């Protein structure tokens, strides 16, 4: 076994995969720009992707905000800086943790569901059947999911941000001896719209990633149940990795620090 050949093969197959993903993205964006538009399907996807994700995103945001307040308090305590809890909580949640945690949760819920559904349609020839019925499968299946995810994610994140800040507020006022009105005033005075907007922009990008990876892996699934299972796993893993990677890039771009 020649190690150079093995490395070469791995690199080539990775490049081929990136190429295929780029082509798929291009096809999806092209389909997005031209009719027909499937309004009914898009609304259905709003419910599945957005509305039904509210409980998980809300719960994880609540606990993240709470634990963040506790940790900052304990850490800040070492320098006598524990009063900074509300400012750091709102900054951390809106800029970073709100969108990332919502993105990862939605990746687990939605990318998996999309990949499993479209993957099953692929292996049972339902996608081929769509083309024989004069329907473009990318327009019919991918575009509604992309649109719904890109619009839902910022809304979910905005809700998650508020719930996260509320989680911090609960812990701070109940356990750490903060006064409620002071905590809220510090929060509101400190947070800028740039903090919040940067998080919402990230959320929209993460929504795009989740829907795209779900659709891409579903479309390319092969074989039977096993192939669909592999597609589902790949969809979740790849969207999580891409979310974390683009998060860094977006942070650098949005705050011009890199």
């Amino acid at each position, binding site marked *: 076994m020649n190690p150079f050949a093995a490395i070469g093969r791995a690199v080539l197959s990775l490049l081929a995969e990136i190429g295929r993903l780029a082509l798929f993205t291009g096809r999806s964006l092209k389909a997005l720009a031209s009719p027909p538009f499937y309004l009914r399907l898009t609304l259905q996807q709003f419910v599945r992707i957005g509305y039904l994700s509210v409980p998980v995103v809300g719960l994880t945001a609540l606990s993240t905000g709470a634990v963040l307040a506790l940790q900052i308090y304990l850490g800040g305590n070492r320098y006598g800086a524990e009063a900074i809890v509300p400012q750091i909580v709102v900054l951390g949640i809106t800029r970073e943790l709100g969108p990332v945690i919502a993105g990862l949760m939605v990746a687990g819920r939605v990318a998996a569901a999309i990949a499993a559904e479209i993957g099953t*349609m692929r292996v049972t*020839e*339902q996608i081929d*059947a769509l*083309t*024989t019925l*004069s*329907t*473009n499968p990318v327009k019919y299946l991918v575009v509604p999911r992309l649109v719904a995810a890109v619009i839902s994610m910022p809304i979910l994140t905005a809700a998650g941000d508020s719930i996260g800040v509320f989680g911090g507020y609960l812990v701070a006022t109940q356990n750490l001896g903060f006064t409620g009105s002071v905590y809220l005033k510090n929060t509101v005075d400190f947070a800028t719209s740039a903090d919040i907007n940067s998080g919402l922009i990230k959320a929209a990008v993460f929504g795009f990633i989740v829907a795209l990876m779900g659709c891409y892996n579903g479309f390319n699934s092969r074989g039977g149940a096993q192939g669909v299972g592999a597609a589902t796993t790949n969809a979740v893993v790849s969207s999580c990795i891409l979310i974390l990677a683009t998060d860094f890039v977006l942070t650098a771009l949005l705050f011009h620090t890199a």
Partner: protein
Amino acid sequence: MTAKIKLIGVKKRFGSKVVLDGVDLAIEPHTSLVIIGGSGTGKSVTIKSILGIITPDEGQVLIDGEDVTHLKGADRDPLMKKFGMLFQGGALFDSLPVWENVAFGLIQGRGMARGRARDIAIAKLAKVGLGEDVAFLSPSELSGGMQKRVGLARAIAADPEIIFFDEPTTGLDPIMADVINNLIASTVKDVGATALSITHDMASARKISDHIAMLYGGKIIWQGPTDQIDNSGNEFVDQFIHGRAEGPIKMAVKA
């Protein structure tokens, strides 16, 4: 007269496995051709190559004399409207009720109003022996034979010019199989469609076809009028239509 469907030297391989090795076939308008051949010889692949679901590696597919082998995307839309297809596995949309499956091409492909499309769907379901009660069930609630018939109703719903039936009678009881045979024969005779079917059921093949072609080793090894099938003079064809284990066609099984 130009052939409705014409295949010239169509080749397709998957990896190192050659499935189609130069298929030549012509189907005249308003006629019905049946492809016979052993399991795994590439009958379904042949139909999918005509539909453009699979792109041949070599050769040409002509529809109404026009080369459509590499037609893609929006350029293909007008062509797809000519086709109706019954998939071997049904390929019903499990997220939609039965009637919407049947009406799908009318609603999405042709922009027909849902109410009107539903009436047509119910009428087409009646033609394949399914009542209105079935129309509102989900495909997963149907038996295999019922799913096949829904697939058939979906294939003919938009009155296509060219219809492909991949094993239309497999999984049906003998009486229902005959009903479906009559339906296929009448869509060709009365509606004037051109049909290309695949079947293993020789009784059905004789009933629904004007011509029969046999696929073997990636090529069409015999083609002729249906009434000539018993005098084909081809030992492969003879072995196949009489279902004999002994003959020139060797099945890859270990004793």
